[in-house]
C-alpha cells in the first residue's frame, strides 16, 4: 500500500518536472496586449528562429516574480514591466542586467527607452477623453478637466497618485518643466492635493485600463483619463469620444529578463527582435499604441501616425513620466493619496 503511494507520488513528481521544456516563456499583461504580442512578436519570431514561445500573463505586480526568485522556481524568461517596477525590481535583483550592445541603433529610440535591466518595447500615453454628446464644447486642457462649472459632470481618474498629482499641478498653472521639482517639495505636494480637493466629489476612480471608456460611454463620467490606444479604438468604432492629446503624459512598457532565466540568450534575441522596425510597425498598427523605434516613422501609414503618441505634433506637447521620481519619492505620496482618497 505504502509502496504504491510512493510510486504514485514519484510518478506525479516526474510528470510535474517534465513540464520544464526548452521553450521561451514570455509573460505579458494579458488581454489586448497578449493578443497583440502573439500576432506581432511571437509568431514572426518563432518563424524566423525555429524556436517556440510559451505565452503567459500576470497582473503586473512584482509579487509572483519575487516569490519565483526566492524559491528558485524560475518558470518565466521575459516579462513585460512598467518602468517604475522595472527600476524597483532591478535594484532588488529581480531582473538580469541588460546588455545594451544588443541594440546597434540606440540613437533611433525614443527618450527614456533604455534602463539598466530593460528595454521599452512600446509607448503609451495617458490622455483624457470626453463624451462629445454630453459636453457643450470641447475641453482642451487640464484646466478644463478641472472646470466643473463650464463642463458639468463626473471625472474619471486612475486610482494612483501618478498623473493625478502631475495633472493637478498643470491645471493649477504650473509650467510642465516645473512639475516634478515642485512635487519634491512639501508645498508642491500640498498644492497638488488642494487642487485635487476641488474636484474630489466628482471623481470616479478607475483601476484597470478597460474601465474608463465604458464609464465614459455609459455617462457615469463626462471626462476621464485613459490610455491612448483604448481611446483611439473607441473613436474608430464610431463612439462619441473626443481625445485631448495636449499635455499628455507618456512612458514605455519594458521587456526584462528574470534573474536566473534558463534561456537568457534566446530571451535577449527575442527582445532585440521585438524592438526592430518590422515588429514595431506591426505592433503599432495592430494596437494603436506607440512604437519606440523611430526607424518606423517613414514606414507607417501617416493617418495612423496621427493617432499615435509618436506623432511629432503630439510629442511636442507631451511629457515623459518621471519614473525615477515615483520610485524614490512615491511611497509617502501613495500613502497620503490613499488616506486622502478614502476620506
Amino acid at each position, binding site marked *: 500500500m505504502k509502496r504504491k503511494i510512493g510510486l504514485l507520488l514519484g510518478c506525479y513528481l516526474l510528470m510535474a518536472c517534465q513540464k520544464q521544456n526548452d521553450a521561451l516563456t514570455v509573460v505579458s499583461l494579458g488581454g489586448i496586449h497578449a493578443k497583440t504580442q502573439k500576432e506581432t512578436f511571437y509568431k514572426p519570431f518563432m518563424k524566423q528562429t525555429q524556436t517556440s514561445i510559451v505565452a503567459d500573463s500576470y497582473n503586473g505586480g512584482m509579487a509572483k516574480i519575487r516569490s519565483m526568485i526566492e524559491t528558485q522556481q524560475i518558470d518565466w524568461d521575459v516579462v513585460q514591466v512598467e518602468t517604475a517596477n522595472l527600476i524597483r525590481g532591478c535594484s532588488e535583483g529581480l531582473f538580469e*542586467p541588460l546588455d545594451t550592445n544588443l541594440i546597434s541603433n540606440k540613437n533611433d529610440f525614443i527618450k527614456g527607452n533604455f534602463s539598466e535591466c530593460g528595454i521599452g518595447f512600446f509607448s503609451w500615453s495617458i490622455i483624457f477623453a470626453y463624451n462629445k454628446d454630453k459636453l457643450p464644447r470641447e475641453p482642451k486642457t487640464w484646466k478644463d478637466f478641472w472646470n466643473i462649472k463650464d463642463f458639468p459632470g463626473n471625472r474619471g481618474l486612475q486610482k494612483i497618485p501618478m498623473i493625478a498629482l502631475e495633472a493637478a499641478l498643470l491645471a493649477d498653472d504650473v509650467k510642465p518643466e516645473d512639475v516634478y521639482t515642485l512635487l519634491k517639495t512639501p508645498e508642491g505636494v500640498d498644492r497638488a492635493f488642494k487642487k485635487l480637493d476641488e474636484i474630489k466629489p466628482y471623481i470616479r*476612480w478607475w483601476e484597470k485600463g478597460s474601465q474608463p471608456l465604458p464609464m465614459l460611454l455609459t455617462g457615469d463620467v463626462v471626462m476621464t483619463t485613459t490610455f491612448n490606444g483604448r481611446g483611439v479604438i473607441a473613436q474608430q468604432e464610431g463612439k462619441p469620444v473626443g481625445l485631448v492629446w495636449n499635455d499628455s503624459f507618456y512612458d514605455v512598457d519594458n521587456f526584462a529578463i528574470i*534573474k536566473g532565466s534558463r534561456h537568457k540568450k534566446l530571451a535577449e534575441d527575442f527582445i532585440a527582435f521585438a524592438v526592430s522596425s518590422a515588429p514595431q510597425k506591426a505592433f503599432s498598427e495592430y494596437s494603436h499604441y506607440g512604437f519606440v523605434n523611430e526607424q518606423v516613422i517613414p514606414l507607417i501609414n501617416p493617418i495612423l501616425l496621427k493617432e499615435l503618441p509618436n506623432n511629432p505634433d503630439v510629442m511636442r506637447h507631451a511629457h515623459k513620466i518621471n519614473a525615477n521620481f515615483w520610485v524614490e519619492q512615491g511611497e509617502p505620496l501613495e500613502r*497620503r493619496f490613499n*488616506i486622502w482618497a478614502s476620506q
Partner: protein
Amino acid sequence: MEQIIKQQILKKGLKKSGRKKRWLSRVLVMPVVIFLIVFFVVPLADILCKSIINPEIHRNLPQTLQALATWDGKTTPDNTVFMALANDLREARKKGVAGAIGRRLGYEDDKYRIMISTTLRKLPRKPVDDIKSKIVAASPLWQDPTTWQVIKQVSGSLTTHYLLQSFDYKTDYNTGKLVPITIKMHNEQVANYHIKILLRTLWMSFIITSFCVLIGYPLAYWLSCQPTKRANLLLILVLLPFWTSLLVRTTGWYILLQSNGLINYLLQLFGIISQPISFIPGRFGVYIAMIHILLPFIVLPLYAVMKGISTTHLRAAISLGAHPLYAFSTVYVPQTYAGLRAGVLLVFIMAIGYYVTPALLGGPADQMISYFINYYTNEINNWGLAAALSLQLIVLVVILSWIYSKISYRKRKV
C-alpha cells in the same frame, strides 16, 4: 485457570484488532494530514513569519555592522565604518540587492530611501582613501549620528516594525518609545489608516451579517414550513446562486446598479426619482451584493436545524395559553441557536475576508482589509506589512470565534 487464559487470549485478540483498526484509520487520514501540512500549514506559517523577519540590513551590510560595533553612538563614525559601508554597498549593487537596503531603511523614514539611492549613484567604483567625505558629499544625512542609530536599530534579524505598523504605531528611533504613525495632510497630522480599515472591516461585516440574519431567518423558517416537494424546489432556488461564480454575481450587481442600469431605469420609469442615483461605487452597492452572495450561508444551516424541530412544541405552548409570538421566541427560537450560531459565524468570517465584491463595487472608502493585503503584496511589495495585516485578520477571526463559542455555550446551558 483455563478461563483466565481464555480471557487473556481474548483480550489480546481484541487489542490486536483494535490496534489494526486504529492503524488503518490513521493511514486513511494520512493523505489529508499531509495535504494540509504541505499546502496549508507550511505556506501559511511561511507567509506569517514574514511579519517578523528582518533580513535586509544584517544580511546586506555585514561589514558595516561589524565596524559599527565599536562606535560610541553619539558622533559621526570614522572613516573605517564608511569604508565598510562602501564595500557593502558595492557588493549589494553587484548582487543586485541594494534596493532592499533602501526599502527597509525607507520604512523608518522616507528620507533614507532617497539617501541610499543617491549614495549608490555617487559611490566611487573603486575603493578610495577618504571615502567618508565622498559619501557625506553624496548625502549629508550620513553625517547625522541618528542615521547610524537607525541602521543599528533595524539590523536585528527579527523586528516588531510590521506588527506595530499594522496597529499604526512605530518605535521612535530617538527615544525608543512607541509613537503613533501620523501623516501630514493639508497642514494637519492625521493618524495612519490601518486601525481605521480594521474597524471599517468589522463594521461592514457586522452590518452584512445583521441583514443576513434579518432576511435569512424568516426565509429559512418559511422554507421549513413548506411541504417537502415545494421546499426542495425552493431550496434549489436558494442554492442556484451558489453554482454561479462569485465574480459573475458581483458583475451582475454592477450591471444592475450602475447609473444607467436596470434599477435606476425602473425607478425613473415609475417616476420615483428624476435623476439616476449613483449606487456604485459606494457602500450601498457593496452591502446589497454581499448580503445577496452570503445569504445562502445562513439560510442553509438554519433550514437544516429548523427542519428537525417538531412543530408540536409550539402548538403545545400555544395551547397552554402563550401568545404565539411569545411561544415562538421562547420555545422555537432557542432551538435554532445551533444553526443560527453556525450561520452567523460563517457569514461574519467570510465577510471579513471579502475582496472581489468591495473591490469592484466600492470606492476607496469602502475597501476592506483584504484589499490592503493585496495592495501591499502586489503593488507596494511590502510583504512584511501584508503578512502583519494577514496575521491581524487571522487572530481576529480566532478570537471572535472563541468569544462567540463561549457566549453561545453559556446560553445553551441556561
